[in-house]
């Protein structure tokens, strides 16, 4: 279990992390979502004892990382943003080094073999790390974090630089690991965090913007009231039809390809216009070729979350 209380890191005047608090329970996958420079890596570096905090506390299984670092570090497997690999070693030498470094007690050969099977690096086991591709290096980094089977895994952007199939593999693996580890992972991709995590913490400029369970937050975050639709037919006709539906506020053409126009349709929040839209367009012989909720970019999310806060504050006042 991880407990973070009011953790801060200041670099001179710059507040890289500014008083964040959260808890991650056993067997929970917690996602850190935030743009580059939000303080995700700094927080993770503090949790793992790589850098110290300016204020606040971080407890790993009840052990303070600053007061009893060696005991706390025993329970953590850490994959930093850039996997800390020695390029002049083979995967085998490197993992054996990590095994010794962590003073691991598990049976050496079978434990390392299990890990290599899990992250699928068995066939590069005897190759030099410097000759491995980015994807394999990332996996060796993950393997390194898993050595010693620590109850807490901290993974900093584990899927960056991987190809799509590798991303899916790693995500599946993290989900699997989440069943018997506490996992904290960071990402700047909303869909990734949504796909993997039980709980999401959104951070920006060193502060927590939102802390919620995945379902509740994704309801808040998906732009259910903003749709993008590809509809055949004349632009004016389609727009007129769309706007005639109750609750539709905006219908804007955003793209055109081979006679099919793409529209961005915004409705009042909480109103589902999809059925009505389908009926209207079908009735007017303007077939809908594609209809989906607009994906929110991180900027939209922050805007939304911070605007939500502002609105709430206004209401309270």
């Amino acid at each position: 279990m991880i407990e973070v209380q009011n953790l801060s890191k200041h670099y001179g005047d710059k507040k890289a992390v500014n008083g964040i608090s959260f808890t991650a329970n056993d067997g929970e996958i917690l996602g850190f979502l935030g743009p580059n420079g939000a303080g995700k890596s700094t927080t993770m570096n503090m949790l793992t004892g790589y850098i110290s905090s300016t204020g606040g506390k971080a407890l790993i299984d009840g052990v303070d990382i600053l007061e009893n670092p060696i005991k706390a570090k025993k329970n953590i497997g850490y994959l930093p943003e850039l996997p800390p690999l020695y390029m002049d070693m083979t995967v085998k030498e490197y993992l054996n080094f990590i095994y010794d470094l962590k003073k691991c007690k598990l049976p050496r050969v079978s434990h390392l073999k299990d890990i290599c099977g899990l992250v699928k690096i068995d066939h590069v086991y005897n190759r030099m790390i410097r000759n491995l591709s980015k994807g394999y290096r990332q996996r060796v980094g993950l393997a390194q974090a898993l050595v010693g089977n620590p109850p807490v895994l901290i993974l900093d952007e584990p899927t960056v630089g991987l190809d799509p199939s590798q991303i899916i593999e790693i995500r599946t693996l993290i989900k699997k690991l989440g069943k018997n580890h506490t996992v904290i992972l960071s990402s700047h991709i909303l869909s990734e965090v949504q796909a993997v995590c039980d709980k999401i913490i959104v951070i920006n400029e060193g502060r927590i913007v939102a802390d919620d369970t995945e379902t509740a937050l994704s309801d808040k975050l998906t732009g259910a009231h903003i749709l993008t639709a590809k509809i055949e037919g004349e632009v004016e006709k389609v727009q007129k039809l769309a706007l005639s539906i109750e609750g539709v506020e905006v219908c804007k053409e955003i793209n055109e390809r081979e006679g099919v126009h793409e529209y961005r349709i915004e409705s009042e929040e909480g109103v589902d216009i999809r059925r009505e839209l389908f009926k209207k367009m079908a009735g007017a012989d303007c077939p809908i070729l594609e209809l989906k909720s607009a994906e929110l970019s991180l900027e939209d999310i922050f805007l939304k979350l911070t605007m939500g806060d502002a609105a709430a504050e206004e209401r309270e006042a």
Partner: protein
Amino acid sequence: MGAIFRREVLGYFTSPIGYIFLAAFYAFSAVFFTTSSIQNGSTEMNTMFSQLMLVLVVLIPILTMRTMAEDKRSKTDQCLLTAPVSLGGIVAGKFLAALLTFTCAVSVTIVYAVIVAGYSEPDWMVIIGNIVGLELFGASFIAVGIFCSSLTENQVVAAVISFISILTLNLLSILGGLLPWEFLQNVFTKLSFYERYSGFTFGMFDLSNVLFFVSAIVIFLFLTVRVLEKRRWS
């Protein structure tokens, strides 16, 4: 500590650094041995030992330049500093690995002593004293070099700072001689690494010199730990 020690030794001998260091040391010591002992037909090896000082000033920075700097540059320090190992253990592991490589180099002087012994009975106690002295002298340079390496993430910068520091520590007595105050001259002479080492090459085994080098090693390794600690806080 053991893991870091093994990894560092492996690092010296999977990269050219270890081999270059050993080859250069063997070559220079062989030249000094030939010119001072063989060509003079003497069993006296003190001259060779005192000349080796110059070689160490240049070679030790090459041996230690990557110890801390490379870890910082390639971010592998993240793996060491987040592992359940103390900072002291990390520094000690790296120090001992460099010391082992250096000992491999120094051990060649035993071969020279055996060669000399083939001609006539040498003064073994003096030779053993010299070897111990050279080992301590080099070990204190290694500690200085590791400390300098922890200050930067650029290996070349680390090597240059180490070179200047080691040279300065050796020449403290000469630098002190430039000062007008006798008290300071004495202090500088006492602190000069070369003055301490030259005692060994005269065949004197002075315990205070041994303690001096051991203290220097402890102080510089301790400072290295402080640098690592400070980096986490800033």
